[in-house]
């Protein structure tokens, strides 16, 4: 687990990318991690079925906040239907090294919320799919 806290992760934790709100998000979703009480909200601007802009807000541990921050960069420019179909790999490719099973929900919270926004209803936990 100590392998997880690399410099770029801590940088995303302390300087989250695309943090804040959109003026008129086409879709949004928010959720809590029942384990930690971590909170994440995603807001997406959509044009022609494509995610043109994205913002997130939240509070919680470094894993949840850094994962969400990195995810905002990954989904910008993606088709909304592709966001809805994202698997846990998109998160694990970025932050996967060293996450213990007990903290996997923290890492997946942002993805669950982004997918919920894209689908229009609460998505399942990506790590359980």
């Amino acid at each position, binding site marked *: *687990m*100590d392998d*997880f*806290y690399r410099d770029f992760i*801590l940088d995303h934790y*302390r300087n989250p990318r695309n943090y804040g709100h959109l003026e008129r998000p086409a879709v949004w979703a928010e959720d809590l991690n029942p*384990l*930690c*009480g971590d909170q994440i909200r995603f807001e997406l601007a959509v044009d022609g079925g494509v995610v043109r802009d994205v913002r997130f807000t939240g*509070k*919680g*541990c*470094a*894993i949840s906040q850094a994962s969400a921050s990195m995810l905002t960069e990954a989904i910008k420019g993606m088709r909304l239907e592709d966001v809805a179909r994202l698997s846990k790999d998109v998160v694990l490719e970025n932050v996967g090294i060293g996450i*213990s099973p007990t*903290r996997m929900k*923290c890492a997946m919270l942002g993805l669950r919320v982004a997918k919920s926004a894209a689908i229009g209803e609460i998505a399942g936990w990506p790590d359980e799919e």
Partner: protein
Amino acid sequence: MIAATRTPEMIREDFPIFAHPTSRGKRLVYLDSAATSQKPQAVIDALVTYYSEYNANIHRGVYEIAARATDAFEAARVKVARFINADQREVIWTRNATEAINLVGYSWGLQNVSRADAILTTQIEHHSNLVPWQLLAEKTGATLRFIPVDGRGVLQLDNLDRLLDGVKLVAISHVSNTLGTISPLERIVPAARAAGATILVDGAQGIPHMPVDVRALDVDFYAFSGHKMLGPTGIGVLYGKHELLEAMPPFLAGGDMIRKVEYEHTTFNDLPWKFEAGTSNIADAIALGVAVDYLSALGMEWVRAHERESLAYALGRLAPLESRGLRIYGPKDPAIASGVLSFNLADVHAHDLASILDTEGVCIRAGHHCTMPLMEKMGWPATARASFYIYNTQADIDTLALGIEKAARIFNV
């Protein structure tokens, strides 16, 4: 009298879990006894012996092993009664402290609390001693009041007499699970008595850590869990004053709690069995009796003294880390606190801190500790909590300090 001549290092040897290093090969440093304690070999053996030598249902069997099971089960009740200075008829087996508190809420509460009454609790309570009273207030129309807590986690008794006006029940924790603060029962109980209130104490964090004499405390109900005091999970106790328990209606109904059953009518059993419907948790009750033996042999004065020393040592050991952003919550005074230390490190989330400590074999709790209203009031999203018990050594606390230093290094604070 301080009975123990044994050191925490020797006590540690009695707990088989400490013989197993973590998957990273680290020595297990268990600092989460406020959540659940580890179990000595004698307690584990009591479970195995019951199931392998005399597993039988109690109270009605006429054969030898049924009699042996009944004797052991009731002998455990006598041990617990002596441990808290109660009569054995006043010791009701429950699943845990939570169930014991709910028993009082549903049985005594629905019979005695009405719309005009108030229930007084505190701002520091575990959900177990808050949510049952919210439900009782909803059902009866009674109002809930709270003894306030200051920024150090100490109860503020300035307006106690006014708060007690019209109060039917005072429900208070003996020791805070989040901050370790010991409630000043010696001040609250006489005032509550003078106001004519019934007094329930949530002793889940009290009885494992200090001598408890329910007569000396002069409380009406004292609820606790076995698993936080070296016993197994699934067994707890409600102590209640005899005359109160006599007057209360049963909580759960079924077998064992009856004297005579007809199709239309039932006569209930005597105390304590009136409140023990269905087959009890036999093995776990017997093993809790063994846990009580273990604690009695150490001496609860010694247990309390050891925790006072552990907390004082930890406060001293961690103080230099305050320059790295370590914040310690609670009274920080071993004279009025049990062996609980709540803290945060700079902008490191408590769960990240717990994960880094885990890599060093250190088990701590992180989160809201089932005290969400307290955390909200204090403005803490989450805290890390280390809690000490009889098997924790100064080396454990040194490892905790080194783990926090490692987290400070990783997070560059």
